[in-house]
């Protein structure tokens, strides 16, 4: 008996040791700061170094149109970027999972991965070199006679979207490839044999099968896009009006940590609500979806 007990105890110790880094990381870097931020967001400064509990930070968000306009705009553009990423990623994932074989499939995966060898800042600056008024693309357009003068391609909403889709592509391709690879080709052939055309096969067979992968990809991409700071700020400039920029401004420029913390929690609430809504709308279970990511 004592030996059995010792074995069980050492097994538990081993499990605790294995989980310790993750638990430390979670509690020290995620839970504790968020608890502090939550406390910050529910107080108001009435005099230097004097704070009272209050909902003033949240009230400001709803009474100041700029804030909730930017909030809504960020949410809608993130949703748009997610949808666009799905449209672009699906054919890529289909090619990798179903059309390419062996080495070719691995090679295509690497091609999707290559942009991530470069840091996000450098990648985004690369986009700026391409798109700014004196950049490569506007010059090329002039050279080809499509535009008379170089046009400024930076600082448009479309530019932000392109940048976001580019950054997010891999995170959509990976879960899609996983879910498409597990689709038995015989199902597609059977549907074809029973009289279905391409559109019906996609709608009735492929998408229902890939739904967990699609949902997983959308959730990850939406969260990444919503919380992205660099791409909207650099490609959108002063007009980007991205909500993370507002949070940054409150913390760094205005030194209004209380307001910044409240914004942070509003963004967290939005992201949680959208994920919940996405799961409900697609009829997926969170656990199934998370296994695909």
């Amino acid at each position: 008996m004592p030996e059995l007990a010792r074995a069980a105890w050492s097994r538990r110790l081993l499990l605790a040791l294995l989980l310790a880094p993750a638990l430390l990381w979670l509690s020290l870097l995620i839970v504790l700061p968020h608890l502090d931020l939550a406390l910050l967001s529910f107080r108001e400064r009435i005099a230097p170094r004097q704070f009272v509990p209050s909902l003033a930070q949240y009230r400001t968000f709803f009474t100041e149109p700029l804030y909730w306009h930017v909030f809504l705009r960020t949410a809608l553009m993130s949703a748009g970027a997610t949808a666009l990423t799905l449209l672009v990623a699906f054919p890529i994932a289909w090619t990798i999972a179903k059309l390419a074989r062996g080495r070719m499939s691995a090679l295509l995966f690497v091609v999707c991965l290559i942009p991530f060898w470069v840091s996000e800042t450098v990648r985004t600056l690369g986009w700026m070199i391409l798109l700014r008024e004196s950049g490569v693309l506007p010059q090329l357009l002039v050279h080809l006679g499509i535009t008379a003068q170089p046009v400024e391609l930076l600082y448009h909403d479309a530019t932000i979207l392109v940048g976001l889709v580019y950054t997010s592509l891999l995170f959509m391709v990976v879960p899609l490839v996983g879910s498409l690879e597990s689709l038995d080709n015989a199902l597609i052939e059977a549907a074809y044999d029973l009289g279905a055309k391409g559109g019906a096969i996609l709608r009735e067979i492929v998408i229902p099968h890939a739904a967990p992968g699609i949902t997983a990809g959308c959730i990850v991409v939406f969260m990444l896009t919503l919380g992205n700071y660099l791409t909207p700020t650099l490609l959108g400039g002063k007009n980007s009006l991205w909500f993370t920029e507002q949070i940054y401004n409150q913390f760094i420029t205005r030194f209004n940590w209380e307001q910044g913390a409240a914004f942070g929690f509003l963004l967290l609430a939005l992201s949680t609500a959208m994920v919940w809504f996405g799961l409900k709308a697609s009829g997926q279970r969170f656990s199934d979806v998370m296994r695909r990511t």
Partner: protein
Amino acid sequence: MSATASASSAPADLEARAVSKRFGAHLAVDNLSFAVARGSFFSILGPSGCGKTTLLRMIAGFIQPDGGSIAIGGRDMAGVGPNRRPVNMVFQQLALFPMMSVSENVAFGLARRGMARAERVRKAEAMLERVGLAGAGGKRTDELSGGQRQRVAIARSMVLEPTLLLLDEPLGALDLKLREHMKLELKQLQASFGTTFVYITHDQSEALVLSDHVGVMNHGHFEQLGTPQQLYYAPATPFVAGFVGNNNRVAGKALALEGALVQVGTAAGWSVRARAHGTIAVGSTVEAFIRPESAMLGRSAADFPPGQLAYTGEVLSLLFDGANSVVLLRELQSGQELRIALPQTGAYADLKVGDRIHFGFDPERAICFPAAAAHA
């Protein structure tokens, strides 16, 4: 080899003319021609890699033949996609749609034809009832047993009233007991629907039990095309003799000709008489095939009719399998090993390993091929 699957006057539902398919250097289907009569059950029997799956996929329209033509219901199918052919297929792993209910699976093809929902539900229910699955329409496909899934796969195809139903080894995934049961059920379903079935399998028992006609395929061509009885009792080639049913293969030389019979002698000195197939010259190498059930056992040499050669053998092992029990013997003089069926009377139930016993054959039921003719 060119042949017609049926001598009856029924029109052909499937007609292949000089169909070929090559994958790189490998000739998968080699200039194949055959016809399948309306309402018949036709099997293509062959070992894996013989080209039968390629042939089936060409009939279904998933791959295009390199040469020749395929006509279904009298209409040439060149350039017609699988979704527009009057052909449906039961896939090897059945390929039921797991994202749909049983009823939706059956109604899938009807929906693709633009049939209204109420009508398609009614037709799907009627079809499910016909295959003995009334009331199972609302179930998920993974709630069904192997046999039930099989029937859903057939119902899903048959509801579209195809000219031809293709079946790609659908019984392969089932366990033995269920396979025996489904064999019977398939035959009954085919008889009740009256649809032409084209069935591919590597299991000779399935082909023999189910089919009106069987094409035995090897290396991309038909070795023989005929009724199961013809294949069994009158194999046209050594391959068919070895592949269809159990057989003892005896390789040797033709020692002498006695009318239609050949005396075959093995290198070890055993000799046996068999019916000659084709012309055999004395001294040429030959292959003889003797069915285990065509042999007779005897306690003494006097048990055999006069004129028949009787041999003495030692029992190497007894393979008891009810009605299919066999004894493995070694002929004493030459060491030739033979499988011989035990009579079902139980007369030799007391046989033990190491016992000596007499055995003999009716030479008319053994068959001898010239060895060089194989794959010529």
